């Protein structure tokens, strides 16, 4: 560790190039060793905790991410993915990023490529850079840093101060092959999924005067990446929690329902009358149509549908779109217990008439804690039995 600190002194931008290269090579070897410590089968947290006690070293790592030498920047980024993997690491990197604002707040350094100790900004810069080779690693760092729920507002503030707009970030994410070096940016999916737990980002995503949420909808069927698909479905699910947006989300303007149902639909054939009631996207699916393969994603889709069951107007729209038909077929096919339960929950509400339900918003029902416990127990039994 000490040796690392000593070497880092040689690593200021003014150091003679030959000395710098020599020192960097040395650091690289140490970093490599550290990295193996983290990722090896016998990964211990010791190395990480040692690093967390050395803010200077963490700052240095952020600098290395921006190094012109590809191997060094990649290695540093990889280590930072591991460091931000848990809450304490993320917290440390947030503090460092925030403190960088005491000295500068302008966009000019985005252009000048000066080394920066604001990790959020450094990551965004790499993601926006079409020819960056660490864009994917930076997406992973952001995905990690947006995960702890109680830190999310601080992260959002840092992103908003970075000089990049949400529009720009989203556009990079939805552009096909934005990165020319083969980085896929799939991990921006989980980033958005994490971020939309905050109402701030949901407000942005569901701006009715713009086209935001609509841009990510096609990715619910994105077969190339489970990460991206899962991130998008998670994002959409988070958006369904705002009951005041239900009608808009289900309107033709967004048509969210068809994007939630499509991954749940199989190749089944229905008669023309049933078919015509389904959303257009689900009509006459080919025999080759397969359902979402990942049970976690299926569960999120079903939970999103369940959110729509909270309000009367949304329930009626779901019934009108023949949601039941898709769920009935899914239920015949589904093997995963959690998904089966979630599917039944939705169907149970949908098959009831509004007269039987007698409530506009089910979220307003107060459930005594004794019942809550009982329901949880019943759910558990359902999942473990049958």
């Amino acid at each position, binding site marked *: 560790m000490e040796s690392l600190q000593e070497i880092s002194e040689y690593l200021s931008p003014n150091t003679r190039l030959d000395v710098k290269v020599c020192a960097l090579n040395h650091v690289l070897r140490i970093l490599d060793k550290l990295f193996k410590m983290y990722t090896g089968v016998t990964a211990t947290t010791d190395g990480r905790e040692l690093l967390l006690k050395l803010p200077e070293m963490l700052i240095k790592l952020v600098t290395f991410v921006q190094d012109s030498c590809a191997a060094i920047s990649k290695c540093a980024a990889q280590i930072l993915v591991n460091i931000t993997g848990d809450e304490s690491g993320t917290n440390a990197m947030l503090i460092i990023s925030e403190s960088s604002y005491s000295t500068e707040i302008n966009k000019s350094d985005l252009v000048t490529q000066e080394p920066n100790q604001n990790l959020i900004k450094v990551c965004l810069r790499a993601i926006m850079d079409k020819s960056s080779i660490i864009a994917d690693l930076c997406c992973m760092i952001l995905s990690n840093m947006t995960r702890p729920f109680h830190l999310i507002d601080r992260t959002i503030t840092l992103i908003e101060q970075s000089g990049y707009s949400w529009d720009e970030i989203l556009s990079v994410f939805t552009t096909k092959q934005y990165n020319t070096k083969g980085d896929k940016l799939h991990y921006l999916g989980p980033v958005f999924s994490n971020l939309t737990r905050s109402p701030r980002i949901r407000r942005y995503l569901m701006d009715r*005067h713009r086209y935001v949420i609509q841009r990510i909808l096609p990715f619910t069927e994105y077969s190339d990446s489970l990460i991206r698909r899962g991130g998008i479905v998670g994002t959409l699910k988070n958006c369904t929690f705002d009951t005041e947006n239900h009608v808009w989300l289900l309107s033709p303007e967004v048509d969210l329902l068809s994007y939630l149902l499509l991954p749940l639909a199989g190749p089944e054939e229905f008669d023309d009358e049933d078919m015509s009631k389904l959303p257009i996207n689900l009509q006459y699916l080919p025999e080759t149509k397969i359902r979402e393969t990942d049970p976690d994603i299926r569960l999120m889709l079903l939970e999103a549908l369940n959110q729509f069951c909270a309000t009367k107007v949304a329930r009626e729209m779901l019934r009108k779109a023949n949601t039941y038909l898709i769920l009935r077929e899914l239920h015949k096919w589904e093997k995963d217990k959690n998904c089966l339960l979630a599917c039944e929950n939705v169907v149970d509400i949908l098959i009831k008439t509004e007269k039987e339900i007698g409530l506009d918003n089910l979220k307003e029902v107060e459930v005594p804690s004794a019942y809550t416990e009982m329901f949880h127990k019943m759910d558990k039994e359902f999942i473990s039995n049958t």
Partner: protein
Amino acid sequence: MQGNEVGEKKKDWTDEERLELATKLGTELHEYLNSLKKKSYTEGWPEDRWQEEMEKHPFFMKKPPELGDELSPLMEGLQQLKYGEDENTPEELANNYKEDGNFNYKYKKYRLAILSYTTGIQTKCKDDNLMAQLYNNRAAAHFMLQNYRSCLNDCKLALKFKPQYPKALSRAITCSFYIKDYDQCIDLCDQFLDQSPTDKTILKLRSDSVIAKERLQRDKRKQERAKKKLDKENEKLLETIFRKGINLELTNDEQKLELRDLEPLVSQIAQRVHFDEKDKLVWPVMILYPETQQTDFIQNFHEDTLIIEQLIELFKEPPEWDVNHRYIVENINVYFEGENKCSIHKIDIQLTLDEILRDKQFIVRGGTPAFLILVKSSEAEKHFLANY
């Protein structure tokens, strides 16, 4: 002015004096003119052709000179000034052609405008902005002529010279919508919305595109489903007939049963052999009466129906040509012709159609089994059988 005043004293004229001087000058002028030698006016336009000459003058011409017309020297000079490569840089030339194009466009002469812009583009001038404008304006002219594909191409070229050029981008969006390239339309909309995220027209076009695209895809899926279903049905039909061992006259030499072998050759038959809802075959059948040269068509002859049942049905009402009522079920024989029409076979009418068709001797021609009916032991029957 001052100098004059100093040099001469101004004379005060009275009105009479002025009038007198004017008259005098007038007379002198007339005298002078009269003294001139009379000669005809030669330098100007000839009196009989002045209109024609006037038309040639660039100031007065009513229509632009057409290709191959001889140009007046004045016109040529002016053209040289405006269009000569020695007089103008490529940028100036391109700009001149752009203005020509805009002029034509303004007067709705879109084809001429396109020609002007094209010439401007051919200067390959170095001004990217100007090149973008030329392509964009030509795109606009193409748009007015509803040449949406050409318009789209020009918009794309304009965007090459000037990325994010809003006019070109929005026109490209409209064009891709018109030519139903919805994927491209949505892509271009997103590009546009990156710059102005709240543009209502483009937002509307984008959502219209998404809906139109979904409809298009749904229709395609529906078609494919229907086609697959039909293919399957056809396959099953061929397979069933083959399995039953029914002989069919084949059109190709490879001894492979094809759908076209089932197609009826006569227009009186509405539908070829098909399945009923219980997957039983229903055949179209032709009945011939050699004696009277008459023909009957049975559109739907179920394979499990006995021949006799169908005959009873057929002769319930005696045919109008059968004046003597000789054609009744008890009084007739039913035959079919064997391969190459070389043989004739009497059938047992107590059998079903299916059983008859499976007969090794039976052959179905033109997808339609045919039977011949003759009155038992009649002259006609004897005569007829003698042919084989």
